[in-house]
């Protein structure tokens, strides 16, 4: 049988030096998490499909591995940890004093083409901060991320901060169909100005709205970017998002980590459960982000417990691929 010796696409086997290196990275990061009082949680590798489907959103939902059990329930292999942690907190840990600081490490599974730093089975290590004061919590987990990187000996990195609410506020009052919105998001994500212009033309938006969306594409840079962004909008949601972002940047300034912080308001893609601050971490020499996270204030509500939360994770494969 051919399949006895073949390797399924997107899986990996670690041994020898690589396995040692991987465990060393895990221990180093966990020591930082522990130091910040994050307690480990070990969730199951599969759960009901519905637990994940909503949070992943239309774009990523298709990547979930699902299967049917003997009673006919639809189950899924976990495509991420956050929904599982949220579910546990909303149910089993509902009585625990807040804020809750939890951390995890393990494999997640997504049906993706293995390329460009993606695997089908990949490992995440991360934290969730649940029920805390927002700006403080956002700042805290970014500091945890920074300390983890430093402890791993990674000195050069950049954290791009964004706010989902900014874009959400802009498109909220435009009458897009779901399909149009997905298309617009995709074009912004590609930074395809030409394509975006044509698409906005087709949707016959007002000049002002067209310009806002087109400006969004390159809304990246230092903290001045927030000022530029403010001049573009007048809706409450976007303004509030910028206020949050400004407050977070001010909070982070106290910790003298400015050199690592950048602003990116053009980030509109990704997992659907994010509601506020989002961030991505880049390291020179690697063509894709090494980790990221964000705020998900509405996710726990799905499980019957309304608590603001924020979290992030690193990709262990990508950390592994960095030179020491």
């Amino acid at each position, binding site marked *: 049988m051919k399949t006895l010796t073949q390797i399924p696409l997107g899986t990996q086997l670690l041994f020898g030096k690589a396995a040692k290196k991987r465990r060393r990275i895990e221990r180093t990061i966990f020591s930082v998490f522990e130091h910040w009082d994050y307690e480990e949680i070990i969730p199951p590798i599969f759960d009901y499909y519905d637990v994940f489907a909503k949070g992943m959103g239309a774009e990523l939902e298709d990547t979930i591995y699902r299967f049917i059990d003997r009673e006919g329930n639809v189950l899924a292999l976990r495509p991420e940890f956050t929904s599982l942690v949220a579910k546990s907190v909303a149910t089993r840990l509902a009585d625990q004093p807040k804020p809750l600081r939890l951390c995890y490490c393990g494999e997640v599974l997504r049906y993706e083409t293995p390329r460009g730093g993606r695997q089908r089975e990949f490992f995440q290590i991360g934290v969730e901060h649940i029920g805390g004061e927002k700006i403080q919590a956002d700042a805290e987990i970014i500091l945890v991320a920074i300390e983890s990187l430093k402890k791993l000996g990674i000195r050069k990195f950049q954290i791009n901060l964004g706010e989902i609410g900014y874009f959400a506020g802009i498109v909220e009052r435009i009458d897009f169909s779901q399909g149009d919105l997905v298309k617009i998001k995709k074009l912004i994500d590609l930074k395809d100005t030409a394509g975006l212009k044509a698409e906005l033309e087709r949707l016959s938006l007002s000049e002002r709205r067209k310009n806002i969306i087109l400006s969004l594409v390159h809304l990246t840079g230092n903290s001045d970017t927030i000022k530029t962004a403010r001049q573009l909008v007048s809706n409450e949601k976007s303004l509030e998002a910028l206020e949050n972002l400004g407050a977070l940047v001010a909070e982070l300034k106290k910790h003298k980590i400015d050199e690592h912080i950048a602003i*990116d308001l053009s980030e509109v893609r990704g997992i659907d459960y994010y509601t506020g601050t989002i961030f991505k971490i880049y390291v020179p020499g690697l063509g894709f982000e090494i980790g990221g996270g964000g705020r998900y204030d509405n996710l726990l509500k799905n499980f019957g417990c309304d608590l603001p939360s924020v979290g992030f994770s690193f990709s262990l494969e990508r950390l592994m691929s960095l030179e020491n």
Partner: protein
Amino acid sequence: MKDTLTIALSKGRLLDDALVLLRKAGIELAESDTNSRKLVIADTQKRFQFFMLKPIDVPTYVEYGVADAGIAGRDVLVESTADIHQPLDLRIGYCRMVVAAPKAAARQNYRELSAVRIATKYPRITTEYFTQRGVPVEIIPLSGSVELAPLLGLSDRIVDLVSSGRTLAENGLQVVEPIMDISARLVVNRASYQIKRKQVIDLIDRLAQVVEK
């Protein structure tokens, strides 16, 4: 961290136009280099490093960040589905991707067939195009001289690029319908866009100024 920006260039039909555009933008490559067989070339002011690649490989180099940026036709970008930024239409390398067929086959509407057999260098785009129209498609993947396939009976039709239409005509083929307009794009790696933002934005701006309106 090195400060030079690395740029992947497509050898072949796009290269001359790309070099002209770069020169207009103040980025000069020595002719002795571009006419040589060197695969890695620096510009005369040594601010950039260029990789000379097969067009289809450009998106891959950029996706992995081995090249910070690149110049690639929309055909290979769509076909590769590489996850990269495409900030600028360079308005060079214009052509169309079309379905073409020998005259007899061209007269028959392929929608009436139970299945079509297509020779192409673009299996992904072709499959998507026909399945969206509800027509099952059998792909004959080729890497060159696609026009030959219908002549020898390897396929009923082809999907390929056409600019003047001369190659098609000389091989007794005609356009059945257009699939998309193609031109070259500046592409940028996602991490490079963030980490080397100043240089990347400078490159985008320089090129944007000299792109024909």
